Structure formats: C-alpha cells, structure tokens
C-alpha cells in the first residue's frame, strides 16, 4: 500500500473522473449481459428495467431448442462464421498493410490517384454499391461459396487509410537506413514498419472482425443455400414472423450475448498487446 500513499492529488482527481466515466462506458455491456438473463415477463416490461430482477437460464434453453429445431444444424452456421471471419481478418490485414506500406513508403505511378480513390470509397454510402456488388459476385461465379463471403471484405479502404496514416508518422530516415544496410522492401515492411504500427493493426483488426462477424448482408445477398449462411443470419431468423417474434424474444436476447462474447474476447486480447507495443515502439 506504500504505492498508494505516494500518488499525488492530481492522480486522485484523474482516477475519480475516469471511474465515473468508466461506469457509463460499462452500461451497454451490463445491459447486454443482464438482458440475456431476463425472464419473458421482464423483457416486455414497461417501463423497461435496466437490470434483471429474477435471473433465469430459460433464454439459453430456448436458444438451444430453436437451434436444434432449425433445418440446418447450428454447428454449421457457427463453422461458417468462424471460417469466414478468420479468413477475412487474416487476408484483409495482410493485404491492407502491404498496400498501406506501398502508399506510405514507396513510389509507383498512379499512387496519388489511387489513394484518392481509397479516400472516396471510404466516404461513399455503402448502400449505394450493393446492387453492383451482387452483379460482380454472381459474374465471378462465387455465389454460395466461402469466397462470396470473404472476397468483398478483403479490400477494406478504412484499413489502408488508418495504417497509411500511422506509417506516415514513422521517419523516412528509419527505412532509408535499413535500405542502405541492404534490407529488401519486404524486410523493411516486416521488421521495421509493422512493429511500429501495431496500434493501427489492432484497431483495423477489431474493425474488420466486427464488420464480418456481425454481418448479415453477405448471407442475404450472396448466398441462396441455407447451409452457406452465417451465425448472425441465423439469429435474425429466430425472431422472424409474429408468433416467433414474441415467443423467441428471450432466445434472441441470449443469442445477443453469445454473439457479443467473441467480440469482447478479441478486444480484450488485442488491446493488451496494442498497449504493450505502443509502449515499446521504436518511434519515440
């Protein structure tokens, strides 16, 4: 406890403010968890209550029952989701980072023009390109394949944008020095640039993971075969129709928590390594 005594008044004030705001930050998480355990009577209570009064496991039982009753086994949806999300995250990170490296540290014809295109697509309403994407996916013949899920996610403009901006902050002298020592472009990218932009890598990874893991649109648009669709799609079907819409509300609440957990886990893992690399980074 000796440590506590030496911290200054300023630190105490900061701690106090942070604790207050942290409490508000935790509200949605608490809400998701507490809702998953609410019995039917509390789910439809008006005015709604924030915290569960009589927690029950009924919602999870309902969810398992609904999962068993589905034509396509639940494990299939889960498997699809894991494959699609895993592949998308790895491929998107790899190609966006090499691309960001080229934009930031190399010269090639059409660079400025191409980067403007990246910025433009970043700002464009995604809804406006849905039809064309469908046409392309069907022309490529990848409807009802894992490629149909993964390929449209590979070229995320936001990933390239964030990583390029971070790489721009790394002094050119660093990569120049490595070049003089005889390092190839790929070595510079892997050994010098990447370790220094880990915060950006972590952020982009979380953004891509979220986008793919929770996405229902590729299941709806590019897949006609039920067995090729993913978990979030299955969860939206839980509450389809008027009767199921009411009766399965509990199962949907449980599903919400189940979907949220991987998000939370990947976040917990990533943010730790992000902070460590930020502290050890060689830029400062």
């Amino acid at each position, binding site marked *: 406890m000796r440590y506590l005594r030496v911290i200054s008044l300023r630190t105490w004030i900061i701690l106090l403010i942070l604790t207050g705001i942290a409490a508000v930050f935790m509200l949605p998480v608490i809400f998701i968890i507490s809702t998953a355990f609410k019995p039917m009577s509390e789910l439809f209570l008006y005015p709604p209550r924030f915290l569960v009064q009589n927690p029950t496991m009924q919602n999870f039982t309902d969810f398992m029952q609904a999962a068993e009753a589905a034509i396509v086994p639940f494990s299939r949806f889960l498997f699809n989701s894991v494959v699609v999300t895993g592949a998308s995250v790895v491929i998107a990170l790899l190609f966006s980072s090499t691309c960001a490296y080229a934009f930031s540290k190399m010269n090639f*014809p059409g660079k400025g023009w191409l980067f403007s295109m990246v910025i433009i697509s970043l700002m464009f309403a995604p809804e406006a390109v849905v039809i064309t994407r469908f046409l392309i996916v069907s022309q490529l013949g990848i409807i009802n394949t894992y490629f149909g899920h993964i390929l449209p996610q590979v070229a995320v403009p936001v990933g390239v944008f964030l990583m390029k901006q971070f790489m721009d902050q790394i002094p050119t002298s660093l990569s120049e020095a490595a070049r003089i020592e005889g390092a190839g472009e790929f070595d510079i990218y892997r050994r010098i640039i990447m370790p220094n932009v880990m915060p950006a890598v972590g952020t982009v990874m979380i953004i891509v993971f979220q986008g793919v893991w929770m996405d229902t649109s590729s299941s709806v648009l590019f897949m006609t075969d039920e067995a090729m669709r993913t978990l979030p799609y299955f969860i939206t079907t839980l509450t389809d129709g008027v009767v199921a819409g009411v009766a399965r509300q509990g199962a949907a609440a449980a599903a919400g928590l189940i979907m949220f957990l991987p998000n939370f886990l990947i976040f917990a893992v990533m943010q730790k390594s992000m902070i460590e690399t930020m502290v050890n980074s060689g830029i400062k």
Partner: protein
Amino acid sequence: MKIETRNKLTGFSFIAIWLIGFLLFWAFPLIFSFFMSLNHVTIQTDRLLFEFVGLQQYHRALFMDAEIPNVSLLFIAQSLIIVPVIVVFALIMALMLNQKFPGRGVARAIFFLPVVLTSGNLINELTNQEQGTLSFLQSATVTNLVMTLPDTWALAVTNVLNSFLMVLWYSGVQMLILIAGMQSINPSVYEAAKIDGANDWASLWLITLPGITPFIFISVVYTVVDQFTTPFNPILEVILHHFREPATGYGYATAIAWLYFLLILIILGLVTLIFRKPLGLKK
C-alpha cells in the same frame, strides 16, 4: 532491368492483390453507381432496365424533393456540434489515459470498449431490443432521477444524456489514435522543457498539441466519415427508402448518394483547409 523499373514493380507487387479486390468491390461499383444515377433503373426478375435521363434525377433531388434539404441541413448542424465534441472529448480522455496512474491498463481497456460496441450492428441491436433510442435510459433508476425535475428540464436532461452516451461511444478509435500520437513524442523533449522551467500546462500547449496535430487531423477525418456513414444517419435512411420505392428506384437513390458524397467531400475539404497551417501543408 533498370533500378527505377524494378522499384516500380516492387511497389505494384505490394498493392496488386489488394488493388484487384478494391477495383472489383469498391471502385467499379462506385463508377457503375454513377452511371445508374444518370438512368431510371427498373428491376425485372432476370435483369435491370436502364433508361437514360441525364442529370434530371440530380435536379429533382436538389430542387424538387423537400425532404432532402431538410434532412441534410439538420444533420449538418448536428454534425457541426458533435464532431468537435467527440474529438475534444477523445483528446481529453487520451491525455488522462496517457498519465501514469495505478490501474492504467484496466482503465484503457474499459475506454477502448466502445470500439467493440459502436460498430453498427451491435449498437443497433441495443437500441432495437426494446424499441426507441437507447431505451435503457428510460429504465426505472434513471427515469426516477430525471422525473424529479420539471418537465422541460427532464426532456433536456434526457437528450443530453442520450447524446452524451453517443459521444462516449463514438470516440473509441479516436482515443486510440490520439494516445498512439502522444506516445510518438520523444519523452526527452518534456524533460528538456521541464529543466527550462516549463510547467505541465505549458508543455501541453507547446509540446503535446503541436506534436500530435497530424493525429488530431486523422481523428477529425475519421469522426466526420464515421458520423456520415453510421446506420443512424437520417440521409442514409432517405437513400434506403428510395431504393425500395419502385416509382423512384435505384437511379434516384444513387443520385442522392452521389450528392451526399459531394457534401462529405466539401466538409472534409473544409477540415483540411483548417488544418492546413498547423500541418504545414501550405505551399
């Protein structure tokens, strides 16, 4: 092979695969949507029918559709307030989280949490679950607290709380960017300033803020883009509405999307103009 050509080839090899994906799923759809905005598009069971109408749909969106200017003006006004608030909030939080204090790791973890939550679907789920916006605010405890106030005040307090939560949730990535920026400043600069007699306040204004200007710029751009493409955005709702409306159809919806895009472009242009001097972009 000349060194120059080889360099160009290596450059291309780094972006080649990404570029193919980008051209297929972003660039081409964008260009095609511009073509659609010049046509009246009808969807038939097996194909799309295009009827060229030129700029007519743009004219209609700009001068005849009363809904569009109304919705966009309101949204711009709202963004003008919310974007600076988000960035300043993220900046203050980043400054605090960058101090040394016990439990800093846990604190940072909690404050990056919104990054997990804001990405569209989950927050949608949250607001949809009990109909209405941020319904858990209307839950017993908060409502009881607010109800003790006079009516008009109660409404104002709820609104502020509502938007405060929004600000909190939309500032996660920006905090991350800004903390990374603060860590990129060499600590010996602060030590030198301290030896020269600068206090913390002076260091903040003379070292930290100028040092992280590029990162503040990235945060502002990210916030603007984020605000304008969130699923809550009323203009996107108008666009989606016209997608489903057979009378106006895809062509009209994409025309609005392109106008909307121009609007974001103008706003980002203004942001760049403001940051031109501190970023040293002036020529």
